[in-house]
């Protein structure tokens, strides 16, 4: 008897062909490559059900304002939660999250262009050292002036969230790209539209696509204009870039701007000041010892990271966390949950600038310069593969962001030694949309 048999071709059986029984199209050849005869499957038992959390809670409005109470349930009860509603696995414990971040053999991160279904449209240029250097140099050169411009508007009080946290990163883009005035405002609008569009929101996505094209066209014109110019801004450097790859196009620059981190500086600054202003005793400590500004920044990123989670995809079927994660499976690495993991940090829900169990160096997950765990805020960060970084290599974006945040915060303290919230103000942290940064949008001082 052949292995492929239909009910009708069994010898000696009187089975008549019924109206629905037709097996006339049984393929002769069984599929071979990429085909598995038996799927591995893990049976779920009653004791393993995840009934403490309902499927849609993780996409509810409650998650936008207070993700932590839901994440606590996941971390303490379902460390690898199969979320049927949004087809993903939630990873919430510190050691688990960091292990996925560093595991490039099994997991991959998809670029933001993938969300636009535009992979290959432009290439990200951030692996070019010349461009990295241009960015860092321009930021270093323009930082003080940028902060001063922000603080000048805040001299008699104002909103720290919009006046500093949101504005400063855009001022710095102005420095990096050498744009000012209306040009910079226009860039800022396009920048935000492209960043927000790389997600599930239909309208945002289409606006983002239009903005991406507009940005590319604009950069094309800028590249032409600045090609012969002997300047050190990012566009001029890109125009002169000599490499064995095709010349830089506007789309490449637009893709690079899209792929750069946009949330950590704005969200981190806003969250840092949110925490300081709502925890006056911690603000007092920082006032008394300015070295604590840096620690406050690190603690803010741990306690209230603007990027709540990072999305990774399984490159192939992988058995981890007691589950079989299928190829292509979405692994939702929640840095926010990991940062509050009591296995790693004592009293994780408190904001403590003098915390002794937090790494004071780069937050890169399992890489721990001083043996202590760091907060996970740069969701996609991973340890450098370089055993030693050459001296002339520009500082990492992490370090640049930290320096900017610390410098800006020091400047705020200098300008307003007795800074406080406007009386009666009750600021909160909130994501505007699911998957977007969790930060403070209004911080009146």
């Amino acid at each position: 008897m052949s292995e492929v048999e239909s009910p009708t071709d069994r010898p000696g059986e009187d089975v008549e062909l019924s109206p629905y029984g037709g097996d006339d199209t049984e393929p002769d050849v069984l599929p071979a490559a990429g085909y598995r005869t038996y799927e591995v499957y893990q049976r779920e038992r009653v004791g393993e059900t995840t009934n403490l959390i309902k499927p849609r809670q993780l996409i509810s409005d409650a998650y936008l304002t207070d993700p932590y109470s839901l994440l606590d349930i996941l971390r303490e009860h379902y460390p690898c939660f199969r979320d049927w509603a949004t087809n993903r696995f939630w990873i919430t414990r510190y050691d688990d999250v960091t292990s996925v971040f560093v595991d490039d053999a099994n997991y991959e991160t998809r670029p933001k262009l993938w969300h636009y279904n535009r992979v290959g449209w432009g290439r990200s240029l951030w692996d070019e050292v010349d461009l990295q250097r241009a960015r860092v140099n321009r930021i270093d050169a323009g930082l003080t002036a940028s902060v001063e411009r922000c603080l000048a508007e805040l001299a008699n009080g104002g909103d720290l969230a919009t006046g500093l946290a949101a504005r400063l990163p855009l001022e710095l883009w102005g420095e990096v790209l050498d744009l000012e005035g209306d040009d910079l405002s226009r860039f800022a609008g396009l920048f935000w539209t492209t960043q927000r569009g790389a997600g599930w929101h239909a309208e945002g996505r289409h606006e983002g696509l239009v903005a991406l094209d507009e940005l590319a066209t604009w950069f094309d014109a800028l590249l032409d204009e600045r090609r012969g110019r002997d300047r050190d801004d990012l566009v001029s450097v890109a125009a002169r870039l000599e490499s064995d790859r095709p010349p830089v196009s506007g789309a490449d620059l637009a893709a690079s701007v899209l792929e750069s981190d946009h949330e950590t500086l704005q969200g981190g600054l806003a969250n840092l000041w949110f925490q300081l202003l709502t925890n006056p005793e911690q603000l007092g400590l920082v006032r008394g010892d300015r070295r604590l500004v840096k620690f406050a920044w690190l603690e803010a990123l741990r306690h209230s990271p603007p990027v709540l989670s990072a999305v990774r995809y399984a490159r192939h079927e992988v058995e981890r966390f007691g589950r079989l994660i299928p190829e292509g499976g979405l692994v939702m690495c929640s840095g926010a949950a990991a940062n509050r993991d009591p296995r790693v940090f004592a009293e994780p829900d408190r904001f403590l600038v003098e915390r002794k169990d937090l790494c004071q160096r780069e937050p890169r997950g399992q890489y721990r310069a001083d043996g202590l765990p760091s907060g996970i805020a740069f969701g996609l960060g991973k340890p450098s593969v370089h055993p030693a970084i050459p001296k002339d290599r520009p500082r990492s974006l992490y370090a640049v962001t930290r320096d900017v945040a610390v410098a800006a915060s020091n400047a705020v303290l200098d300008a307003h030694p007795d800074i406080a919230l406007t009386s009666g103000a009750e600021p909160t942290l909130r994501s505007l949309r699911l998957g977007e940064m969790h930060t403070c949008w209004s911080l009146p001082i």
Partner: protein
Amino acid sequence: MSNPFDAALEVLDPDDSEGAQRRFPEMPIGEAVDMGHAPDGRPLLDPRIFDSPEFGRNPYPYYRIMRDHYPVFHDQLHNCYFVTRYEDVTACYFDEVGFNTIPKGVSSGVLGNTQLELSGIEHRRRRNIYGRHLVGAALTKRLHALRQLGQELIDEWYAAENPHGVEIDHDAGVVTIELGRAFANAFPISVVAQVLGIPQEARQQFTWWYDAMMSGLGGSDTHHEGLVARQDLEEYLESLVESRRRLPTALTDEAGNEISLDIISELCASEIDGDVMSTEEITSFVALVVGGGGETTRGAILNLWYLLLQHPEQWDAVQGDDGLWNTAFHEMLRHSTSIGGQPRHNTFDIELHAVTIPSGSLVHMVDVAANHDDRVFADPERFDIFREDLYSGKILRSGHDKDGRYSHMGFGVGPHLCPGAWISHQEAVIGSQILADNMPNVRINVERMAKDIDGESLAPIGLGSIRELWLDFDLT
């Protein structure tokens, strides 16, 4: 105070309270909520619509947008892709190499590793074992039992204990029933239990299990209850399977002759690759048959009656015409099938309609959207048992295009074509005929039915099946 970026930051409107959830207005049937337009004029689809009540009651305009503008729709909120055109769904179902049935579907948690999750040789081996019970001569010889079970249920309507909530108004000479409670809930599950070889006394319990399992499929709030029911069913079946392993039981025909073993006995006696099936395998199979054979057929009967009674000329036409009952059954499945579609998992990176789908993605084959594809069915939203583009003969795995007529996707197509298609067809048609014979001058009790948003017209079926169907008929 001025911030040069005020205009730019309007993109980040902190007062945008829309957030993750969005309340979609309920639209007149057939019209979609305006969710904005892309610059090229294409209507936009907000993926939150799929979680909304509006989509459940009025899904077809949204599926039309998908078919016409996004034949592969990437839903980044729910992390999946939708394939909606008839031609594409068919091609994907037949591509056993390119699309795996790996358990990523929401049913797996409760039902277990069922036939739905198997591919290739493992799939065929099992399918061949039970196929003949649901399909072949063994079933044809059992049709008398279907009639008998149906008639028994109807006879109980007039019994003293009145277990089906039948209301008899002797003065007005009117009987009022809820078709589900009076007939459609119990009938399919009785048939399934009988074919499986479940003892009569356990059938009440069976009905409860299948209710709980169906409502507890993964991703739902009642998932826990579903798993509990599955566990109970398993404990019950364990002893049953053990006894059938020792002493197989058989099904009999009208004259009392043995036709064949019942399905559980057959599974106990069957070997796959030289080895007997485990109790777990048998339980998963039974769970699937209980689920697949109960809820879907119940929904089919209710939807069929609801649609026919709203189209009186079509209702009149089917009376006494067995052939037209069959046609009506197929048209009902095309128009309002209760299974929305099947999940698949692509084996390789594929590009379809200019969308690149990375390997391992969850791809939903939307049967109900394919059934309403106007590339195939003219005026698809219209229920019309006389339509000439629907094929309603012998359903083959490949039978989607015969002489310009296309079969509906209510049973899927390809290797996983519903094996219960024939038995459920027989249940719905035979059950309906018996019902029609026993319910003179039957009409919908409009007062008790769920209403649409205008508060007057009858609620649409939408996705799935209607919950209740209240009927009046003359007391004889």
